[in-house]
């Protein structure tokens, strides 16, 4: 048995080494660099047009609440979004259905994106729900939340780039 285990390891090693030997490391480095440039551009856009993004954030937050209401989660009673209220948002997207749960923690702002269907996936970032009816807080930094889905709903952004299907900014 031990011998077969060693053979499994050897087989995996042989496959990995063989494939890695073909990698163009400079090319990979350039590809990563291009992706980082893209990320930089997104960050710059957020900094350059904070008001636009804050309004978008307000719309996104409203959309989240609307979806919660449409879907009819049994946690609706917990949804309370006052001006500047910090909240924990659980976003659960299962097979053929989706549910969103918003809970007010009162202490910290977190977003948990949980894509269900047996394949759980989680992402976290800071958020602040912005109330469009109230005064926009100019000193607040906006942050991106990328809600990724296993399959594109609206657009495929290229080869193997179907993760960034829905991007929300809070």
């Amino acid at each position, binding site marked *: 048995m031990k011998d077969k285990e060693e053979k499994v390891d050897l087989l995996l090693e042989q496959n990995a080494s063989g494939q890695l030997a073909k990698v163009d490391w400079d090319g990979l480095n350039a590809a990563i660099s291009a992706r980082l440039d893209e990320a930089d551009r997104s960050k710059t856009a957020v900094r350059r047009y904070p008001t636009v993004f804050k309004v978008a954030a307000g719309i996104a937050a409203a959309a989240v609440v609307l979806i919660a209401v449409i879907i009819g989660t049994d946690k609706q009673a917990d949804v309370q979004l006052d001006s500047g209220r910090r909240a924990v948002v659980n976003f659960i997207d299962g097979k053929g259905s989706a549910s969103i749960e918003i809970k007010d923690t009162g202490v910290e702002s977190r977003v948990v994106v949980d894509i269900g269907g047996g*394949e759980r996936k989680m992402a976290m970032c800071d958020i602040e729900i912005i109330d469009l009816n109230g005064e926009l807080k100019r000193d607040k930094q906006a942050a991106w939340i990328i809600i990724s889905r296993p399959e594109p709903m609206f657009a495929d952004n290229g080869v193997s780039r179907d993760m960034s299907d829905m991007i929300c900014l809070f």
Partner: protein
Amino acid sequence: MVLDSGQKVNSTDVERLVKAGRGGSREAFNELVRLYQRRAMRVAVGMLGNVDDAAEAVQAGFVRAYLGIGKLKKPEQFEAWLLRIIANTAISQQRAAKRRTEKIKIAGYYKDKKAGSPVRNGIADELKDAIQRAMLKLSKKEAKAIGLFGLKDLSHREVAEIMGCSVEAVRWYVFRARRKLRVLLKEYL
């Protein structure tokens, strides 16, 4: 520390780069990418069994790391932190690809790769496909454990730290992964 490229890296240098990266230095982060891209690829290939998917996961993983480096509190834990991100990204990508394949299969468009592709590179491609399919049969944790073990210099303790579980659990995942792979890859053993 000796990286997979054979390059020796001083941990103080890495910490310095991480601190600069946290402060927003793109140059420092580029240097970290250059230093760790081979290790990241080794883990991803070990988990996915396919270099193209691994490259995609590594690119996405480095972007996540770049966006999140400000939250890394201990620069000395950069490698563990980065490899955790890479492993998680690789798993997400693998499961998404699996779902896509299943959907295509259901739609009746699925063609067996071996039979459908006219140009094959013999046994190496066949083995690659077999390993790729076999890795999909493992649980997420088994796939992560076996992928991280591809980095020969990582101890059980370090793998446990990256995976966020106990050393015993890591041993168990590796044991189970090998046992499954032994059956799934028996014709190549």
